[in-house]
């Protein structure tokens, strides 16, 4: 047994192992996810962060059985929900897990809301279908849920159609729909991109409250590192379809062990009056998704790249208990003079 804090060994609701997902496109095969593995613990929040296009949404869509096939393909891997692989089945005990055991907040509200149906009716329908509410009770509950997500005059708003909602109101309507059935696992894909900070704070509080009450697990995809800081217990950092660093939220923020994670942190806007610091984009662009490079995917942009990194995929190093980095710099013989990068303490 390791001496790691017991919390890191909490039972996992969801265990994703070696997930690989591809898409056929006109130009070739896009390798969107290449070997993602992570656990989501009951009652905890796992945040997934990474560059736009790195495979975050595709990863969770695979778990939800939402990858269109064709052109998509899950070529390898499993996702166990309480031990049952859900990559290849959608029904457990006669119940569709979608909307029932797993709730999902989609990145594009309009792609999941029906434009021709009143908002309240859409939420009510979930409750009617999955929870057997009567039509009237379901609508009443839908109004309550809208009010919980801070939609004012929810009763009137419930009778409106999606087009008359603002971007942030749509996002909140979708959150109301996702939590309607009090799922065991909530997948939230960029749930607050259209919310101002005060409403965002209230929504995050609401999710935390539900989490505590129902021991709900959350997968939170967000590019907003402040939201990660507030919500996450564990963090997965993805780059070009792969997981490059993984650990507790404190590991990732205070002991970053991958150069990409450091690059992300340097890109944040600074809070001082002198705006010269911060907001440094990582130079270059991510690798070609048709032909991922043979070695480390971050090689071409990494300020600390070594010759070895170009051709050899880095193995996973455990830099501290339950904190992993896929970077050759953690090889015992590699130089350790990288500013800001965390290295395992040498015995």
């Amino acid at each position: 047994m390791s001496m790691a804090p017991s919390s890191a060994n909490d039972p996992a609701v969801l265990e994703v192992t070696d997930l690989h997902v591809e898409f056929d496109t006109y130009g070739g095969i896009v390798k969107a996810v290449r070997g993602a593995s992570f656990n989501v613990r009951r009652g905890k929040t796992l945040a997934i962060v990474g560059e736009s296009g790195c495979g975050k949404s595709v990863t969770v869509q695979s778990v939800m059985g939402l990858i269109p096939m064709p052109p998509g393909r899950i070529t390898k891997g499993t996702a166990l929900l309480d031990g049952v692989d859900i990559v290849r089945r959608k029904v457990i005990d006669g119940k569709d897990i979608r909307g029932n055991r797993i709730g999902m907040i989609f990145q594009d509200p309009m792609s999941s809301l029906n434009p021709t149906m009143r908002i309240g009716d859409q939420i009510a329908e979930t409750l009617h279908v999955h929870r057997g509410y009567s039509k009237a009770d379901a609508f009443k509950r839908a109004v309550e849920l809208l009010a919980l997500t801070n939609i004012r005059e929810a009763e009137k708003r419930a009778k409106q159609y999606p087009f008359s909602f603002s971007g942030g109101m749509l996002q909140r309507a979708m959150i109301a729909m996702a939590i309607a059935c009090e799922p065991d696992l909530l997948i939230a894909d960029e749930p607050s991109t259209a919310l101002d900070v005060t409403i965002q704070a209230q929504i995050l509080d609401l999710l935390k409250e539900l989490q505590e009450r129902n021991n709900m697990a959350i997968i939170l995809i967000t590019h907003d590192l402040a939201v990660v800081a507030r919500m996450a217990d564990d963090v997965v950092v993805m780059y070009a379809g792969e997981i490059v660093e993984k650990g507790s939220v404190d590991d990732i923020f205070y002991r970053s062990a991958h150069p990409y994670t450091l690059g992300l942190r340097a890109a944040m806007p600074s809070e001082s009056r002198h705006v010269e610091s911060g907001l440094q984009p990582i130079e270059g662009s991510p690798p070609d998704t048709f032909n991922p490079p043979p070695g480390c995917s971050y090689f071409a942009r990494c300020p600390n790249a070594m010759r070895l990194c170009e051709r050899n995929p880095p193995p996973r190093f455990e830099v501290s208990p339950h904190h992993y980095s896929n970077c050759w710099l953690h090889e015992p013989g590699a130089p350790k003079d990288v500013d800001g990068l965390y290295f395992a303490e040498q015995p």
Partner: protein
Amino acid sequence: MSALIESKALTKHFKIGRNQIVHAVDDVSLAIEDKEIVGLVGESGSGKSTFGKTLLGLHRKTAGEVYFEGEQLPDIYKPADFQRYAQRIQMIFQDPYSSLNPRMTVGEIIGEGLRLRGDSEGAAIREAVAVWLERVGLERGHMSRYPHEFSGGQRQRVGVARALIMQPKFVVCDEPISALDVSVQAQIVRLLGELKDSLGLTMLFIAHDLSMVRYVSDRIAVMYMGAVVELGPADDVYFEPKHPYTQILIASNPRPDPRSERNRKSVAITGEISSPLNIGSGCRFANRCPHVMEVCRADTPGLILRDCGGSPREVACHLYEPIAGPN
């Protein structure tokens, strides 16, 4: 300095149901100078997108006027007007997905404006599209793909490229970087800065991320329930907010630091909150305001220069005494 685009008492109400009116934008006057970037922030549902769209004639105005380069924009746009203004005025839409035609490739979508303008050849358009894909951090090879084959943030950048390829004079950017990671955000922000310098691009930049808005903007306007409640130089508004709503907004800005976020108190809002469906008299923030006074419930404060200690600020709040203007 002269305003490039200016709204005068711009108002947009939506009728819903029988006698329900949503006061989405009420009496907003805002002048944006040439080469200026004005950041527009505010509560979700406060009317930011509606203001941007009404400014550009994408919604029919309920009342008010809009001037562009000194000329009044038409009340009702005819197709020819859109053609005429599309070269100089563009919009980046908040919802990238529903604003991209799913049956067109991304190359066709980005190149469409140039094609409609009719002064470039097919090959030149393709080359311009390729250049713009790269400028927003995508690949040339993405041209042949359809919108649904992109990630959320990639689609958002398609919307950015489609608007900017026209080299417009003025753009309303409605949450143009909200779906991007910080590094790509920084890249887009840098691009916008370059365009401001090289093309004299002027912008209304709608966003909710205050620390980013402050970086991008010359001035920040804060909206609450259909009205602008504070307007001033970006750093002044960010570091010394005056309107109680702005103060709450800035104080709620989360920090990317787990230790401080864990200790942050929740912000429960108390009191009866008014909504744009139900606008009472007086200040719209009165019911939530920690400094509310008698006068606030009776009399709507105007957005005018007021004495805030230090430099005066345009703020719609009775806490501050108006400064008598020259006129």
